[in-house]
Protein backbone atom coordinates (compact mmCIF):
# COMPACT_ATOMS: atom_id res chain seq x y z
CA UNK A 1 0.00 0.00 0.00
CA UNK A 2 2.80 2.37 0.81
CA UNK A 3 4.28 2.19 -2.64
CA UNK A 4 0.99 3.20 -4.25
CA UNK A 5 0.57 6.20 -1.99
CA UNK A 6 4.12 7.28 -2.73
CA UNK A 7 3.64 6.85 -6.46
CA UNK A 8 0.73 9.30 -6.50
CA UNK A 9 2.83 11.82 -4.61
CA UNK A 10 4.15 14.90 -6.36
CA UNK A 11 7.86 15.64 -6.48
CA UNK A 12 9.33 17.86 -3.77
CA UNK A 13 9.11 21.61 -4.31
CA UNK A 14 12.41 23.45 -4.54
CA UNK A 15 12.07 24.88 -1.05
CA UNK A 16 11.18 21.42 0.34
CA UNK A 17 14.17 19.89 -1.42
CA UNK A 18 16.57 22.50 0.02
CA UNK A 19 15.13 22.10 3.46
CA UNK A 20 15.42 18.29 3.37
CA UNK A 21 19.02 18.44 2.21
CA UNK A 22 19.84 20.67 5.17
CA UNK A 23 17.90 18.38 7.48
CA UNK A 24 19.77 15.34 6.24
CA UNK A 25 23.15 17.02 6.77
CA UNK A 26 22.10 17.98 10.31
CA UNK A 27 20.96 14.38 10.92
CA UNK A 28 24.32 13.05 9.78
CA UNK A 29 26.13 15.44 12.14
CA UNK A 30 23.96 14.64 15.15
CA UNK A 31 21.39 11.86 14.72
CA UNK A 32 18.87 11.39 17.54
CA UNK A 33 20.01 8.68 19.98
CA UNK A 34 18.62 5.26 19.07
CA UNK A 35 18.01 6.04 15.38
CA UNK A 36 19.89 5.27 12.21
CA UNK A 37 19.04 6.68 8.79
CA UNK A 38 19.52 4.06 6.09
CA UNK A 39 21.14 5.87 3.19
CA UNK A 40 19.33 5.78 -0.16
CA UNK A 41 19.41 8.09 -3.13
CA UNK A 42 15.77 9.00 -2.52
CA UNK A 43 15.51 12.26 -0.60
CA UNK A 44 11.72 12.03 -0.57
CA UNK A 45 11.57 8.74 1.34
CA UNK A 46 13.69 8.07 4.37
CA UNK A 47 13.90 4.66 6.04
CA UNK A 48 15.02 4.95 9.65
CA UNK A 49 16.03 2.18 12.01
CA UNK A 50 14.67 2.51 15.55
CA UNK A 51 16.22 0.77 18.52
CA UNK A 52 13.99 0.27 21.55
CA UNK A 53 15.40 2.16 24.54
CA UNK A 54 17.18 0.11 27.21
CA UNK A 55 15.04 -0.62 30.25
CA UNK A 56 11.76 -0.38 28.31
CA UNK A 57 9.43 -3.03 26.88
CA UNK A 58 11.13 -2.61 23.51
CA UNK A 59 14.75 -2.95 24.65
CA UNK A 60 16.90 -4.92 22.19
CA UNK A 61 14.21 -4.72 19.52
CA UNK A 62 14.72 -3.00 16.18
CA UNK A 63 12.01 -1.55 13.97
CA UNK A 64 11.92 0.47 10.78
CA UNK A 65 10.16 3.76 10.20
CA UNK A 66 9.32 4.94 6.71
CA UNK A 67 9.05 8.71 6.26
CA UNK A 68 7.53 10.06 3.02
CA UNK A 69 7.77 13.79 2.39
CA UNK A 70 5.01 15.70 0.58
CA UNK A 71 5.58 18.31 -2.12
CA UNK A 72 5.17 21.15 0.37
CA UNK A 73 7.20 19.83 3.28
CA UNK A 74 7.59 21.29 5.93
CA UNK A 75 4.33 23.24 5.56
CA UNK A 76 2.70 19.81 5.28
CA UNK A 77 3.49 16.96 7.64
CA UNK A 78 5.46 13.97 6.37
CA UNK A 79 3.74 10.59 6.33
CA UNK A 80 5.33 8.39 8.97
CA UNK A 81 4.59 4.67 9.34
CA UNK A 82 6.30 1.59 10.75
CA UNK A 83 7.33 -0.97 8.17
CA UNK A 84 6.25 -4.56 8.84
CA UNK A 85 6.45 -5.83 11.54
CA UNK A 86 5.27 -2.81 13.53
CA UNK A 87 5.93 -2.78 17.29
CA UNK A 88 3.10 -4.04 19.50
CA UNK A 89 1.84 -0.86 21.12
CA UNK A 90 -1.59 0.52 22.13
CA UNK A 91 -1.20 3.38 19.62
CA UNK A 92 0.40 1.53 16.72
CA UNK A 93 -1.78 -0.42 14.29
CA UNK A 94 -0.67 -3.68 12.73
CA UNK A 95 -0.44 -1.98 9.33
CA UNK A 96 2.19 0.39 10.74
CA UNK A 97 -0.03 3.46 11.17
CA UNK A 98 0.78 5.49 14.27
CA UNK A 99 -1.76 7.42 16.34
CA UNK A 100 0.33 10.42 17.38
CA UNK A 101 -1.03 13.98 17.20
CA UNK A 102 2.14 15.68 15.92
CA UNK A 103 2.00 13.57 12.75
CA UNK A 104 -1.41 15.01 11.85
CA UNK A 105 -3.40 17.90 13.43
CA UNK A 106 -0.58 19.14 15.62
CA UNK A 107 2.16 19.06 13.01
CA UNK A 108 4.12 22.29 12.79
CA UNK A 109 6.78 23.37 10.30
CA UNK A 110 8.93 24.03 13.37
CA UNK A 111 9.26 20.25 13.79
CA UNK A 112 11.84 18.01 12.13
CA UNK A 113 12.30 14.33 11.33
CA UNK A 114 14.56 14.22 14.34
CA UNK A 115 11.91 15.67 16.68
CA UNK A 116 9.34 13.21 15.28
CA UNK A 117 11.71 10.33 16.01
CA UNK A 118 12.22 11.51 19.57
CA UNK A 119 8.43 11.70 20.10
CA UNK A 120 7.94 8.20 18.69
CA UNK A 121 10.67 6.74 20.89
CA UNK A 122 9.18 8.46 23.92
CA UNK A 123 5.78 7.01 22.99
CA UNK A 124 7.32 3.52 22.82
CA UNK A 125 9.29 3.96 26.01
CA UNK A 126 6.32 5.02 28.13
CA UNK A 127 4.22 2.01 27.12
CA UNK A 128 3.39 -0.38 29.94
CA UNK A 129 1.78 -3.09 27.84
CA UNK A 130 2.54 -4.69 24.49
CA UNK A 131 -0.78 -4.80 22.69
CA UNK A 132 -2.56 -3.48 19.61
CA UNK A 133 -5.11 -0.66 19.76
CA UNK A 134 -8.62 -1.91 20.61
CA UNK A 135 -10.00 -1.05 17.18
CA UNK A 136 -7.03 -2.49 15.29
CA UNK A 137 -8.94 -4.97 13.11
CA UNK A 138 -11.64 -2.54 12.04
CA UNK A 139 -9.16 0.21 11.33
CA UNK A 140 -6.77 -1.96 9.34
CA UNK A 141 -9.69 -3.36 7.33
CA UNK A 142 -10.79 0.20 6.52
CA UNK A 143 -7.29 0.96 5.23
CA UNK A 144 -7.13 -1.92 2.78
CA UNK A 145 -7.58 0.36 -0.22
CA UNK A 146 -4.19 1.89 0.55
CA UNK A 147 -5.35 4.86 2.53
CA UNK A 148 -2.59 7.01 4.00
CA UNK A 149 -2.73 7.55 7.76
CA UNK A 150 -2.84 11.27 6.99
CA UNK A 151 -6.38 10.73 5.66
CA UNK A 152 -7.57 9.20 8.90
CA UNK A 153 -9.61 11.19 11.36
CA UNK A 154 -7.61 10.49 14.49
CA UNK A 155 -8.87 10.86 18.02
CA UNK A 156 -6.08 11.59 20.45
CA UNK A 157 -7.85 10.61 23.63
CA UNK A 158 -4.89 9.40 25.60
CA UNK A 159 -1.67 11.32 26.00
CA UNK A 160 -0.25 9.19 28.78
CA UNK A 161 1.25 6.47 26.59
Amino acid at each position, binding site marked *: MTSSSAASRKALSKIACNRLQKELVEWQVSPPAGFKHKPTDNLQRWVIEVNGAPGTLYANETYQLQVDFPEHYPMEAPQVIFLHPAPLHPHIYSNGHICLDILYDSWSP*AMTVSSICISILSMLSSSTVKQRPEDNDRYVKNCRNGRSPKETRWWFHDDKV
Partner: protein
Amino acid sequence: MEMQKQEGLLTDAEMESMTSVQASEVDDWANFKDNDIMQQQSAILAEEAEKIPFVGDKEPLSSLEAEYQSGSIILLEKIKVLSEQYASIRRTRGDGNCFFRSFMFAYLEHILNSQDRAEVDRITANVEECRKTLQSLGYADFTFEDFFALFLEQLESVLQGSEASISHDELVQRSRDQSVSDYVVMFFRFVTSGEIRKRSEFFEPFILGLTNATVEQFCKSSVEPMGEESDHVHITALSDALGVPIRVVYLDRSSCDNGVVSVNHHDFTPLTGDLPADAATVGGPEPINPFITLLYRPGHYDILYLK
Protein backbone atom coordinates in the same frame (compact mmCIF):
# COMPACT_ATOMS: atom_id res chain seq x y z
CA MET B 1 -16.73 6.93 -2.26
CA GLU B 2 -15.82 10.52 -3.02
CA MET B 3 -12.49 10.05 -1.38
CA GLN B 4 -11.12 7.87 -4.15
CA LYS B 5 -12.49 9.81 -7.05
CA GLN B 6 -10.64 12.87 -5.94
CA GLU B 7 -7.46 11.19 -4.87
CA GLY B 8 -4.36 13.04 -5.90
CA LEU B 9 -6.24 16.25 -6.55
CA LEU B 10 -6.60 17.18 -2.93
CA THR B 11 -4.60 19.93 -1.32
CA ASP B 12 -3.72 19.37 2.29
CA ALA B 13 -6.29 21.84 3.48
CA GLU B 14 -8.97 19.93 1.60
CA MET B 15 -7.55 16.74 2.96
CA GLU B 16 -8.09 18.07 6.44
CA SER B 17 -11.72 18.67 5.75
CA MET B 18 -12.00 15.24 4.11
CA THR B 19 -10.82 13.46 7.21
CA SER B 20 -14.00 14.28 9.03
CA VAL B 21 -16.14 13.39 6.04
CA GLN B 22 -14.91 9.89 6.70
CA ALA B 23 -17.16 9.86 9.70
CA SER B 24 -20.01 9.07 7.33
CA GLU B 25 -18.16 6.05 6.01
CA VAL B 26 -17.91 4.41 9.37
CA ASP B 27 -19.95 1.26 8.91
CA ASP B 28 -21.00 1.13 12.52
CA TRP B 29 -23.57 3.90 12.86
CA ALA B 30 -24.03 3.21 16.54
CA ASN B 31 -20.62 4.78 17.04
CA PHE B 32 -21.64 7.97 15.31
CA LYS B 33 -21.34 10.50 18.08
CA ASP B 34 -22.17 14.18 18.52
CA ASN B 35 -18.51 14.79 18.09
CA ASP B 36 -18.67 13.40 14.56
CA ILE B 37 -21.46 15.77 13.69
CA MET B 38 -19.49 18.66 15.09
CA GLN B 39 -16.49 17.58 13.07
CA GLN B 40 -18.65 17.47 9.98
CA GLN B 41 -19.89 20.95 10.67
CA SER B 42 -16.36 22.19 11.05
CA ALA B 43 -15.51 20.49 7.75
CA ILE B 44 -18.33 22.41 6.12
CA LEU B 45 -17.03 25.63 7.68
CA ALA B 46 -13.54 24.85 6.40
CA GLU B 47 -14.94 24.36 2.91
CA GLU B 48 -16.81 27.67 3.15
CA ALA B 49 -13.65 29.40 4.32
CA GLU B 50 -11.77 28.29 1.23
CA LYS B 51 -14.12 30.23 -1.00
CA ILE B 52 -12.73 33.44 0.50
CA PRO B 53 -9.20 34.37 -0.61
CA PHE B 54 -6.50 34.50 2.09
CA VAL B 55 -6.75 38.29 1.80
CA GLY B 56 -9.80 39.89 0.21
CA ASP B 57 -10.34 43.18 -1.63
CA LYS B 58 -10.90 46.42 0.24
CA GLU B 59 -14.62 46.86 0.79
CA PRO B 60 -16.60 49.84 2.09
CA LEU B 61 -17.71 49.46 5.70
CA SER B 62 -21.30 49.33 4.43
CA SER B 63 -20.62 45.75 3.32
CA LEU B 64 -20.26 44.88 6.99
CA GLU B 65 -23.58 46.52 7.69
CA ALA B 66 -25.23 44.47 4.95
CA GLU B 67 -24.03 41.32 6.69
CA TYR B 68 -26.09 42.07 9.80
CA GLN B 69 -29.12 43.60 8.09
CA SER B 70 -31.52 41.06 9.52
CA GLY B 71 -29.53 40.59 12.70
CA SER B 72 -28.63 42.23 15.93
CA ILE B 73 -29.61 45.87 16.47
CA ILE B 74 -26.64 46.35 18.78
CA LEU B 75 -24.22 45.23 16.07
CA LEU B 76 -25.80 47.56 13.51
CA GLU B 77 -25.56 50.44 15.97
CA LYS B 78 -21.93 49.62 16.62
CA ILE B 79 -21.14 49.47 12.91
CA LYS B 80 -22.67 52.94 12.61
CA VAL B 81 -20.31 54.14 15.34
CA LEU B 82 -17.39 52.46 13.58
CA SER B 83 -18.22 54.13 10.30
CA GLU B 84 -17.65 57.55 11.86
CA GLN B 85 -13.97 56.67 12.15
CA TYR B 86 -13.32 53.90 9.66
CA ALA B 87 -13.93 53.85 5.92
CA SER B 88 -13.32 50.29 4.85
CA ILE B 89 -12.58 46.71 5.72
CA ARG B 90 -10.42 44.04 4.13
CA ARG B 91 -11.50 40.53 4.99
CA THR B 92 -9.21 37.58 5.53
CA ARG B 93 -9.94 33.88 5.31
CA GLY B 94 -11.23 32.32 8.52
CA ASP B 95 -8.72 29.49 8.56
CA GLY B 96 -7.24 30.04 12.01
CA ASN B 97 -4.41 32.14 10.57
CA CYS B 98 -6.49 35.30 10.16
CA PHE B 99 -4.72 37.34 12.83
CA PHE B 100 -1.26 36.67 11.39
CA ARG B 101 -2.51 37.05 7.82
CA SER B 102 -4.21 40.36 8.62
CA PHE B 103 -1.08 41.59 10.35
CA MET B 104 1.10 40.54 7.41
CA PHE B 105 -0.96 42.39 4.85
CA ALA B 106 -1.61 45.48 6.97
CA TYR B 107 2.08 45.82 7.82
CA LEU B 108 3.44 45.31 4.31
CA GLU B 109 0.77 47.60 2.88
CA HIS B 110 1.72 50.27 5.40
CA ILE B 111 5.36 50.07 4.29
CA LEU B 112 4.36 50.09 0.63
CA ASN B 113 2.28 53.23 1.13
CA SER B 114 4.56 55.08 3.53
CA GLN B 115 7.95 54.00 2.07
CA ASP B 116 9.19 54.41 5.64
CA ARG B 117 12.76 53.15 5.39
CA ALA B 118 13.49 53.95 9.03
CA GLU B 119 10.66 51.62 10.03
CA VAL B 120 12.02 48.89 7.74
CA ASP B 121 15.47 49.26 9.32
CA ARG B 122 13.92 49.16 12.77
CA ILE B 123 11.87 46.02 12.17
CA THR B 124 14.77 44.33 10.37
CA ALA B 125 16.90 44.80 13.48
CA ASN B 126 14.10 43.29 15.58
CA VAL B 127 13.81 40.35 13.18
CA GLU B 128 17.52 39.70 13.72
CA GLU B 129 16.90 39.73 17.47
CA CYS B 130 14.12 37.17 16.96
CA ARG B 131 16.54 34.99 15.02
CA LYS B 132 18.97 35.08 17.97
CA THR B 133 16.13 34.32 20.36
CA LEU B 134 15.23 31.17 18.44
CA GLN B 135 18.86 30.11 18.25
CA SER B 136 19.32 30.58 21.98
CA LEU B 137 16.15 28.55 22.61
CA GLY B 138 17.74 25.67 20.70
CA TYR B 139 15.91 25.85 17.36
CA ALA B 140 18.10 24.58 14.51
CA ASP B 141 18.66 27.32 11.93
CA PHE B 142 17.32 25.21 9.07
CA THR B 143 13.91 24.98 10.75
CA PHE B 144 13.23 28.73 10.57
CA GLU B 145 15.67 30.39 8.15
CA ASP B 146 13.54 29.90 5.00
CA PHE B 147 10.60 31.58 6.72
CA PHE B 148 12.74 34.49 7.87
CA ALA B 149 14.25 34.91 4.41
CA LEU B 150 10.84 34.97 2.77
CA PHE B 151 9.53 37.66 5.11
CA LEU B 152 12.62 39.85 4.64
CA GLU B 153 12.24 39.40 0.90
CA GLN B 154 8.63 40.68 1.05
CA LEU B 155 9.73 43.60 3.22
CA GLU B 156 12.45 44.51 0.72
CA SER B 157 10.10 44.26 -2.24
CA VAL B 158 7.48 46.68 -0.90
CA LEU B 159 10.19 49.36 -0.80
CA GLN B 160 10.19 50.99 -4.20
CA GLY B 161 13.16 51.71 -6.39
CA SER B 162 14.82 48.32 -6.71
CA GLU B 163 14.52 45.54 -9.28
CA ALA B 164 12.59 43.44 -6.78
CA SER B 165 10.01 46.18 -6.06
CA ILE B 166 6.37 45.23 -6.35
CA SER B 167 3.15 47.20 -6.81
CA HIS B 168 0.13 47.17 -4.53
CA ASP B 169 -1.62 44.74 -6.89
CA GLU B 170 1.33 42.39 -6.70
CA LEU B 171 1.29 42.59 -2.91
CA VAL B 172 -2.35 41.51 -2.98
CA GLN B 173 -1.49 38.66 -5.35
CA ARG B 174 1.40 37.46 -3.20
CA SER B 175 -0.75 37.58 -0.10
CA ARG B 176 -3.17 35.25 -1.87
CA ASP B 177 -0.42 32.92 -3.07
CA GLN B 178 -0.16 30.09 -0.59
CA SER B 179 3.55 29.56 -1.17
CA VAL B 180 4.27 33.11 -0.03
CA SER B 181 1.38 33.84 2.31
CA ASP B 182 1.64 30.70 4.44
CA TYR B 183 5.41 31.06 4.76
CA VAL B 184 5.03 34.60 6.09
CA VAL B 185 2.29 33.46 8.49
CA MET B 186 4.65 30.75 9.70
CA PHE B 187 7.42 33.33 10.10
CA PHE B 188 5.15 35.25 12.49
CA ARG B 189 4.35 32.03 14.34
CA PHE B 190 8.08 31.43 14.89
CA VAL B 191 8.56 35.01 16.10
CA THR B 192 5.56 34.74 18.44
CA SER B 193 6.65 31.40 19.86
CA GLY B 194 10.21 32.62 20.40
CA GLU B 195 9.01 35.72 22.27
CA ILE B 196 6.65 33.74 24.50
CA ARG B 197 9.35 31.21 25.39
CA LYS B 198 11.98 33.90 25.94
CA ARG B 199 9.71 35.70 28.40
CA SER B 200 7.98 32.62 29.72
CA GLU B 201 7.69 33.98 33.26
CA PHE B 202 5.78 36.99 31.96
CA PHE B 203 3.46 34.95 29.74
CA GLU B 204 2.93 31.96 32.04
CA PRO B 205 0.02 33.37 34.09
CA PHE B 206 -1.84 34.39 30.91
CA ILE B 207 -1.32 30.98 29.37
CA LEU B 208 -2.48 29.23 32.53
CA GLY B 209 -5.62 31.35 32.32
CA LEU B 210 -6.29 30.03 28.82
CA THR B 211 -5.37 26.39 29.08
CA ASN B 212 -3.83 24.01 31.52
CA ALA B 213 -0.66 23.81 29.47
CA THR B 214 2.90 24.79 30.26
CA VAL B 215 4.44 27.60 28.21
CA GLU B 216 6.35 25.02 26.19
CA GLN B 217 3.25 22.91 25.50
CA PHE B 218 1.24 26.00 24.62
CA CYS B 219 3.80 27.11 22.03
CA LYS B 220 3.99 23.62 20.56
CA SER B 221 0.25 23.09 20.33
CA SER B 222 -1.29 26.57 20.01
CA VAL B 223 1.32 28.80 18.38
CA GLU B 224 3.56 26.81 16.07
CA PRO B 225 1.04 24.67 14.14
CA MET B 226 -0.64 26.44 11.22
CA GLY B 227 -4.35 27.09 11.65
CA GLU B 228 -4.22 27.54 15.43
CA GLU B 229 -6.17 30.66 16.35
CA SER B 230 -4.60 33.65 18.03
CA ASP B 231 -5.45 35.09 21.39
CA HIS B 232 -4.25 38.10 23.41
CA VAL B 233 -1.09 36.16 24.26
CA HIS B 234 -0.13 35.76 20.60
CA ILE B 235 -0.86 39.38 19.75
CA THR B 236 1.05 40.71 22.75
CA ALA B 237 4.06 38.55 21.92
CA LEU B 238 4.15 39.45 18.23
CA SER B 239 3.68 43.15 18.93
CA ASP B 240 6.45 43.10 21.54
CA ALA B 241 8.87 41.02 19.47
CA LEU B 242 8.61 43.18 16.36
CA GLY B 243 7.96 46.43 18.21
CA VAL B 244 4.82 47.13 16.20
CA PRO B 245 1.76 48.59 17.95
CA ILE B 246 -1.57 47.00 17.00
CA ARG B 247 -5.07 48.32 17.65
CA VAL B 248 -7.84 45.73 17.90
CA VAL B 249 -11.41 47.02 17.64
CA TYR B 250 -14.02 44.72 19.14
CA LEU B 251 -17.34 44.18 17.43
CA ASP B 252 -19.52 42.01 19.64
CA ARG B 253 -22.97 42.04 21.15
CA SER B 254 -21.94 43.42 24.50
CA SER B 255 -23.70 46.67 25.38
CA CYS B 256 -22.93 49.34 27.92
CA ASP B 257 -24.90 49.86 31.12
CA ASN B 258 -25.78 53.44 30.36
CA GLY B 259 -27.40 52.53 27.06
CA VAL B 260 -24.95 54.52 24.97
CA VAL B 261 -23.50 52.36 22.22
CA SER B 262 -19.75 52.57 21.96
CA VAL B 263 -17.14 50.37 20.37
CA ASN B 264 -14.29 49.13 22.53
CA HIS B 265 -10.76 48.79 21.37
CA HIS B 266 -7.50 47.61 22.85
CA ASP B 267 -4.07 48.89 21.90
CA PHE B 268 -1.23 46.42 22.04
CA THR B 269 1.70 48.70 22.74
CA PRO B 270 5.09 47.06 22.45
CA LEU B 271 7.77 47.32 25.05
CA THR B 272 10.34 49.78 23.86
CA GLY B 273 14.09 49.48 23.87
CA ASP B 274 15.63 47.64 26.75
CA LEU B 275 12.82 48.07 29.22
CA PRO B 276 12.53 45.11 31.57
CA ALA B 277 9.79 42.64 30.76
CA ASP B 278 7.58 43.76 33.65
CA ALA B 279 7.60 47.43 32.58
CA ALA B 280 4.39 46.81 30.66
CA THR B 281 2.47 46.28 33.85
CA VAL B 282 3.78 49.34 35.72
CA GLY B 283 2.92 52.53 33.93
CA GLY B 284 3.95 51.34 30.51
CA PRO B 285 5.60 53.22 27.69
CA GLU B 286 4.32 56.38 26.03
CA PRO B 287 1.17 55.85 23.98
CA ILE B 288 1.98 55.26 20.34
CA ASN B 289 -0.51 55.63 17.54
CA PRO B 290 -0.89 52.21 15.93
CA PHE B 291 -0.81 52.12 12.15
CA ILE B 292 -2.34 48.65 12.13
CA THR B 293 -6.00 48.38 13.08
CA LEU B 294 -7.77 45.04 13.10
CA LEU B 295 -11.46 44.37 13.55
CA TYR B 296 -12.18 41.49 15.92
CA ARG B 297 -15.44 39.63 15.81
CA PRO B 298 -15.58 36.57 18.09
CA GLY B 299 -13.23 34.06 16.47
CA HIS B 300 -12.05 36.23 13.58
CA TYR B 301 -9.83 39.17 12.60
CA ASP B 302 -10.09 41.44 9.54
CA ILE B 303 -8.26 44.64 8.61
CA LEU B 304 -9.85 48.06 9.21
CA TYR B 305 -8.96 51.29 7.40
CA LEU B 306 -9.28 54.77 8.89
CA LYS B 307 -11.18 57.44 7.00
